[in-house]
């Protein structure tokens, strides 16, 4: 929202939009057990079967959007090559 609109309409519309997106996700999350946690564990299990990596060299990011969300798993493997798996849900 532009600065002009912020002055004219206030910040409440932004609050409303953020809440609508957040709650849509939280309601789904409540009805199914920790989807992100399960994905993370299973993805890591699969990879660890093929390559050895250190747990603290794993970065997991979740970005929740209105219609698509992305789960980004970034694992640094010992030979210096970084393997990136991006998955849209």
């Amino acid at each position, binding site marked *: 929202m532009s600065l002009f609109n912020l002055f004219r*309409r*206030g*910040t*409440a*519309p932004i*609050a*409303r939009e*953020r*809440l*609508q997106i*957040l*709650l849509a996700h*939280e*309601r789904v999350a*409540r009805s199914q057990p920790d989807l992100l946690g399960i994905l993370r564990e299973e993805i890591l299990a699969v990879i660890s079967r093929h390559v050895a990596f250190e747990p603290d060299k794993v970065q997991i990011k979740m970005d929740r959007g209105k219609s698509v969300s992305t789960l980004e798993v970034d694992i640094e493997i010992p030979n210096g090559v970084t393997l990136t798996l991006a998955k849209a849900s």
Partner: protein
Amino acid sequence: MAQVLVVTSGKGGVGKTTSTAALGAALAHDGEKVVVIDFDVGLRNLDLVMGAERRVVFDLINVIHGVAKLHQALIRDKRLENLCLLPASQTRDKDALTEEGVAAVIAELRTKFDWIICDSPAGIERGATLAMRHADAAIIVTNPEVSSVRDSDRIIGLLDSKTAKAERGERVEKHLLITRYHSSRAARGEMLSIDDVLEILSTPLLGIIPESEEVLRASNIGSPVTLCNALSAPARAYFDAARRLKGDKVPMIVPSDNRGIFNKLFGRKAA
């Protein structure tokens, strides 16, 4: 038949205790037999807001542990004889509240009162789930502000899953009470509007309580705002909400900011 209400919110400081006292007193003023119960173990405050803090001898935990009989722990209001308070204990042991104990106390209260109003602690832990456990209906207290609305949504989820009614496949009736509403801020788009909150939470509206210094005055002197100054804007809004609880059709009044008009008339000198 007795109605068990839980006044709940998730978030702290939104007005649960204020609303429990105000609605309890409004219902009692209209002739109903009412008991208000403080479930905030360790942080009791309903006694203070009701002006009964110096008369607490026994509390909810004492009754549950068999140290006192229910009638010994109930404190009769000095202003309304059909209004009683069951105080919380100041113990730090949260496990002192047992599931069976709460069930037994509520069952006994159902035989003695028309309305049993449970003031929930903040949070979504044991204290909050026990307060809602036996509710027939819930009053979800929400401020028009992002974190309060989000927490209310979580509480709605718990009401639909963790209550005795939900486990029996029934529904806990839900009422939304919007409190600390600033009409001028909402008009300027600085605060979520009533429509925004209703749309997001899709729960029927019980009332809109304006932000008012009368609430602070009432708590200073230890009186529910509905008894302290029955004609004030928050008291009227609570009286209307109490009548809606009884099933009366009362038109919803969106509080307007009187000071706003004052400011307009007198050139907005007041800060």
